[in-house]
């Protein structure tokens, strides 16, 4: 058996994220000990009505969240214990709520830093109602193999190492959370482990005290000895000594008290726990407490280091007297199921991949673009065009290629507010649409008549060059099978009013001396088409397409250059409208040609 909490205990956790994380630790313990999960509900007003998913073994358990303790206990009448994880200013009211519930017998408060006055009131209230109030500042309560209330016991590995999946013979009471864990470890190394361990918290006025719990341990036949870790300040250790001395006790009591250092350190110095403070007239010194425990017949090692051997000796005594047997080895702890990630890492499973990615690997410290670390690219002076080359064509561009890509991006970044993409982005911005959606709306305009001809042009120019077609042959083929040649023709630009962007790009590319069979072919096509009609010039889409195919970019990538470049402009238009505080725009009626039928009478509905 154990005290305070067993496998039948059902818990409500009051509080938000800290409580949830405790519930996860508690679920690990339930898995370790092969017992049902013991958290029935959360009380956290902001989350009321929702559920929290807690992993228990290989299952996810949905735990409901309520607004009040009463709602939780109405829905789950089996709840008999509350853990309080509420912040200091609201913890008092929340704890009072739990103490007032007729179902709840034990309240353990984990909250640190609550006012002393509140802690005192809660203890007095719990005594009046005959309930146990543990804490504040408690690390929790753990009954080996039965229940874990809070994060006491730490990580899963430690639970296993300390053999907390099964009962031993030692009770543990400490003020310190870290030391409760340490003592559980010592009990598992030097003896057969623990029955129940309780962190009562290091505040000045803890709720239920050492002697209350000693009395419970005395009445638990499984517990043969209790290890009590105290510290200077207050009089709880003296109370424990008085309890132990009052009559012949069944349990052995092993106690240590810290704070001898106060004899040499400046009086009034603050230690880690609020309660670790001698009185103004030296009451509650470590020495006085240790002497009181010793006088009461407790085993009091001179130092903390003496605890291990003392526990070992006590255990040997217990075994020799036949009071306890060495624990059966049958109950083995259960391992925590591995996550898929861990199992893959350990080589335990093979998971067939769902997709294949060949451009970017993010499994390391930073993403690798086609194998190159982004930070190293930056350090070595590479630019955005190189990143485009790596992610769109899996290769590092040469300096000339990078310069051409850069010029293409600059030239196509924007074309004023009136073109389809910008106009739609602006209209959306004026309608109060967010950036991502407004820019996406502009992006939707990119297609055969606006900016979307790059891939098409690239596709047909490379078809012609690959098949060694001459211009006439090509134009005839296009007329017969495709239609207008993508990349040829402009709404406003013409031979007499040439597109400066095209001129500048073509003359730069030619100046570099790189081979440009596709560009040359496209210019030949233009020479022919402009004879027919002066606006059938090689437009910016067609020029980009021919050059990018010459650079070796795959045809599938080509529209990307326009989309990427024009995104810069659309974002600019959105920001511009937003900063001006533009109002909703609508078309003037005189810009619409209304050709719908005149008003007429609606005929009656036929029955």
């Amino acid at each position, binding site marked *: 058996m154990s005290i305070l909490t067993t496998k039948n205990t059902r818990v409500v956790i009051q509080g938000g994220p800290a409580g949830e994380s405790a519930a996860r630790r508690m679920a690990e313990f339930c898995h370790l000990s092969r017992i049902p999960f013991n958290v029935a509900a959360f009380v956290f007003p902001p989350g009321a009505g929702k559920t929290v998913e807690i992993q228990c073994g290989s299952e996810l358990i949905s735990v409901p969240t309520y607004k009040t303790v009463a709602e939780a206990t109405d829905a789950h009448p089996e709840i008999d214990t509350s853990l309080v994880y509420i912040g200091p200013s609201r913890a008092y009211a929340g704890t009072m709520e739990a103490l007032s519930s007729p179902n709840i017998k034990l309240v353990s408060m984990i909250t640190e830093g609550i006012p002393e006055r509140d802690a005192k009131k809660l203890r007095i209230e719990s005594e009046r109602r005959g309930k146990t109030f543990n804490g504040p500042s408690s690390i929790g309560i753990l009954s080996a193999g039965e229940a874990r209330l809070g994060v006491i016991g730490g990580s899963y590995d430690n639970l296993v190492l300390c053999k907390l999946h099964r009962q031993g013979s030692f009770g543990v009471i400490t*003020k310190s959370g870290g030391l409760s864990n340490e003592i559980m470890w*010592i009990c598992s190394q030097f003896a057969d482990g623990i029955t129940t361990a309780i962190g009562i918290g290091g505040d000045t006025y803890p709720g239920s005290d050492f002697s209350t719990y000693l009395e419970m341990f005395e009445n638990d036949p499984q517990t043969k000895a209790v290890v009590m870790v105290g510290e200077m300040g207050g009089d709880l250790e003296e109370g424990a000594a008085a309890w132990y001395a009052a009559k012949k006790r069944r349990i052995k009591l092993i106690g240590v008290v810290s704070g001898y250092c106060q004899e040499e350190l400046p*009086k009034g110095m603050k230690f880690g726990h609020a309660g670790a403070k001698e009185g103004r007239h030296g009451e509650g010194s470590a020495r006085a407490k240790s002497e009181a425990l010793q006088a009461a017949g407790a085993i009091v090692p001179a130092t903390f280091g003496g605890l291990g051997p003392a526990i070992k000796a006590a255990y040997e005594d217990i075994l020799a007297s036949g009071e306890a047997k060495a624990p059966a080895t049958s109950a083995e702890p259960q391992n925590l199921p591995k996550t898929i990630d861990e199992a893959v890492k350990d080589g335990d499973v093979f998971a067939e991949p769902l997709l294949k990615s060949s451009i970017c690997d993010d499994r390391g410290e930073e993403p690798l673009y086609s194998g190159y670390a982004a930070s190293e690219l930056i350090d070595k002076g590479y630019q955005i065009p190189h990143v485009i080359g790596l992610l769109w064509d899996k290769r590092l561009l040469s300096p000339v290629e990078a310069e051409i890509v850069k010029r293409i991006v600059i030239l196509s970044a924007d074309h004023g507010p009136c073109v389809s993409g910008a106009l739609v982005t602006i209209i959306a911005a004026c309608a109060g649409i967010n950036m991502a959606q407004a820019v996406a709306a502009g992006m939707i305009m990119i297609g055969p008549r606006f900016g979307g001809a790059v891939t098409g042009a690239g596709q047909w120019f490379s078809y012609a060059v690959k098949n060694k077609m001459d211009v006439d042959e090509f134009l005839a083929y296009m007329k017969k099978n495709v239609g207008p040649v993508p990349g040829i023709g402009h709404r406003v630009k013409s031979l007499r009013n040439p597109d400066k962007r095209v001129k500048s790009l073509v003359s730069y590319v030619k100046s570099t001396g790189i081979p440009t069979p596709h560009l040359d072919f496209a210019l030949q096509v233009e020479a022919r088409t402009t004879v027919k009609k002066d606006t059938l010039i090689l437009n910016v889409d067609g020029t980009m397409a021919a050059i990018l195919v010459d650079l070796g970019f795959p045809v599938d990538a080509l529209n990307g250059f326009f989309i990427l470049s024009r995104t810069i402009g659309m974002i600019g238009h959105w920001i511009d409208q937003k900063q001006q505080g533009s109002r909703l725009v609508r078309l003037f009626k005189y810009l619409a040609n209304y050709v719908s039928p005149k008003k007429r009478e609606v005929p009656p509905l036929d029955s």
Partner: protein
Amino acid sequence: MAKVLEGPGMGLVSKWGMAVPHYVVITEAEQLGSLAQANAWLRESKLVVKAHEAIGSRMKLGLVKVGLNLDEARAAAKEMLGKAVAEVTISQVIISEMVKHEAEFYIAAQSTRDGAELLLTNMGGIEVEENWEKVKKIAITLGDTPSSDQLTQLAKDAGFEGALVPKVVDFASKLFQCLEQEDGTYLEINPLVLRKSTGELTALDAVTMVDADARFRHPDWNFSFASEFGRPYSDNEKAILEIDTQVKGSVKFIEIPGGDTALLPAGGGASVYYSDAVLAMGGTLANYSEYSGDPPDWAVEALTEKVCSLKGIKRIIVGGAIANFTNVKKTFSGIIKGFRKAKADGKMEGVSIWVRRGGPFEKEGLAAMKELENEGFDIHVYDRYTPLTDIVDYAIKGVEA
């Protein structure tokens, strides 16, 4: 518990209707001139000038001057302000009127586990400590208020007579209210005197301790808390206190000049056992520190830098029990960064480091610590299989397990 300096402490006492002498707190002696124009008592009374700092034995150190007129008070203030005493610089002085009185009394109220106690005697000043057995006290259960009859009986038991009794009863009930309403933990008025001019009971000096954790419900607590160990906080201590208020978990640091062993342990409970172990082994402590509650690594790093900067240390104890939820790897990474900085600043010369720890990510944390061997640190790393404080024995004896 947290100590409130005399000025703000008097403020709390007077807030609850108890008479206190006139007083002002100043940071520059010149302020007295304009204050004297506004306050007749500064011109008309004899004055007391005291350093307004948490320094013990102010009288012995010459930081209390009595019976002064305004000019003398100004001169005394000028002399005290800016003076360096016990490694601190006096930045405030409190000037109060001397209250003409005859008898001195003692009254105190303190918080107890079950409620509060009122302590009373008709002797004041230093006589109280010598006659502690004559102090009468009553216990008041939490939620109760002492009745007038109870207080009258207490006053009579403590030796008060005649017209003084109702005055003492009134004062005691106000002091009790102050303790209750201000989340006080200890309020001591010594001496309590009968002002000759008015016949009113007046608190000449007060020790005021309140519960720092209750600050959230006292918006008028516009003071910061003073140290309680006889000297003000040093700049290094203040820096860590400041971090402590900002972070999740806690970091604590108190310097003890002259010690040979520095502490950098985890946990409010374990850190005291480490302190005990150092002294039991014949070492001397250079500080008290602890970090707990999974503080961020930068806070632990800042604490480490302060610990490494302690003068004359021979060893640093990086101890700790088996943590419940403090991430050992993360907190140790803060400590390691602090160590590296200290080493780069030449502070680790001749300093050995002794580590023992367990808890979440203990393997990774301890391995990272052990790596420091390769960087020229004199470091000794132990895991959970070495008992908690054994590293202190090894460190001080200079022998390994």
